[in-house]
């Protein structure tokens, strides 16, 4: 497997606070990679750096061989990196179907192509994906009226609609009804296997990430602490310390 995302020696500070120091990680194409770490260890900062929310101080971020650390959010997204948010971001005033319809890939869009209405195929795909995440019954509701967990699912569906190559998921199971978590994990795996989407997942739920990821990175205090297979990470005393020390 070739490496799709290559983060090398990335540092980011906010004022005097170092959020990421010399962080490196590789995400192989077609894999599910986990990113864990205690609260405040710099996971979301790293996501933001990759997605283009803020510039990095040093280091490099390469996607499919191209440097992307100087690109802005929409440009990064159009290359095929889509991220979801810890706090949900959906188009609250629009119904679920419309949320999906506008989430098609935008790399090839021109003003002219935007002037046409959504095609039947697009709408069909939207409904399929809504069905896939279990929101078909709520498709005509404004996204703002959904529960937090449902909004997470919708956001996931929107991300799939965008057909990204790499999907950055920021705590996909947080706030989701525990009964539904297994189903969600299953869907993440299916998205990876059937749609060929590479996943980089921040997750707090150890059970979930151990089950999901093939390779896991652990951040602590902004530095990369450990990496390895789920089993190695689980048994790494430094990881256990970091979590215990933090709580």
């Amino acid at each position, binding site marked *: 497997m070739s490496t799709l995302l290559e983060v090398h020696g990335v540092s980011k500070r906010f004022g005097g606070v170092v959020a990421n120091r010399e962080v490196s990680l590789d995400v192989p194409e077609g894999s599910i990679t986990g990113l864990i770490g205690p609260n405040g260890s710099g996971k979301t900062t790293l996501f933001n750096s990759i997605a283009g929310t803020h510039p990095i101080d040093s280091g490099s971020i390469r996607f499919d061989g191209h440097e992307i650390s100087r690109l802005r*959010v929409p440009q990064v997204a159009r290359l095929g990196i889509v991220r979801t948010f810890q706090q949900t971001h959906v188009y609250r005033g629009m119904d679920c179907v419309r949320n999906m319809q506008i989430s098609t890939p935008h790399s090839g869009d021109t003003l002219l192509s935007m002037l046409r209405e959504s095609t039947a195929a697009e709408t069909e795909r939207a409904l399929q994906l809504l069905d896939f995440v279990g929101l078909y019954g709520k498709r005509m509701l404004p996204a703002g009226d959904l529960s937090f967990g449902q909004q997470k699912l919708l956001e996931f569906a929107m991300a799939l609609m965008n057909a990204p190559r790499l999907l950055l998921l920021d705590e996909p199971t947080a706030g989701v009804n525990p009964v539904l978590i297994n189903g969600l994990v299953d869907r993440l795996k299916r998205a990876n296997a059937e749609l060929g989407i590479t996943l980089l997942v921040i997750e707090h739920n150890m059970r979930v990430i151990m089950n999901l990821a093939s390779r896991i990175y652990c951040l602590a205090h902004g530095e990369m602490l450990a990496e390895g297979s789920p089993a190695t990470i689980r048994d790494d005393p430094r990881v256990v310390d970091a979590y215990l020390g933090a709580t």
Partner: protein
Amino acid sequence: MTKSGRSVAAAIAVAVTGLALPWIVPSITTQAAFLWLMILFSLTWDINGGQMGYNSFGNVFFFGVGVYACALVQRDSGLSYYAGLGAGIGAGALAAALSALVLGPAMLAIRGHYFAIATLGLSIVAANVASAWEYIGAASGIAAPLFPGAIGGRAKFFYYLLFALAVLTFLLVRRLYRSRLGLAINAIRDDEDKAEAMGLHTTRYKVFAWSIAALLLGAAGGPVGNLVGFIDPNDLAFAGATFGVWMVLMAVLGGKGTLWGPVIGAVVFHVTQELFWTWLLGWQRVAMGLLIVVIVVFFPTGILGWVARRRTTAA
């Protein structure tokens, strides 16, 4: 009736009313022409205000550009009246759309109320520059050329022009809101960060939508300048305190972010205003202020929102 049948009926009703009005009640032709202008104002404002979430207090700027561009073409081109007017309206629409294209990328990068204030600043600058710049008549304004037709013909002519523009605007925005661009600007309104994260060309769409509003406002400038006959920089072209604020109020009153809301808002607002003027000599503005407060405080979702809420509670 089928859905399309109903829209055909609605279209016929509007067309008949609009076409017949100056013949049924010729005495109010000018006021009715202004009604169409008001509808155009609130519909175009709602493109960026209601649908895109960019509340502009400066859209009157584009109207003013249109007014002046048309007047200058009529004054300096040496064309005959109708040719000059046609060229002028075209020039006005183009100049307004161009200024939106040029200003858009910088202005539309400013979010929230800062955008509202920046656009307000823009219209104030325009009004001041227009009243100081000798070439465009400075504070003395420009007089539009005299209409060559018969008595009362002028009002009718511009009535139909504005009626056509208002209908065109309505059809255009309706088409726009159905397109994927409509979805995109709605997405930008609801969550611009998300839209960016999903790869939308947000700047491009914002600027384009604003330019459409500008184009239509600019096109309306010429007919209005000619209908009124005398172009004053502060009172007509860049009339921020009246037109500039009214467009916002009408859209909010009817229900912003909807297709019909701005239309209904404009009709109710304009008619109310005409009544105030007739019956509350001198106090009409006091009533207007009171009305604004009541609308905004008690009917924040506008007439359409209010009706919808009453329905859901009744059902």
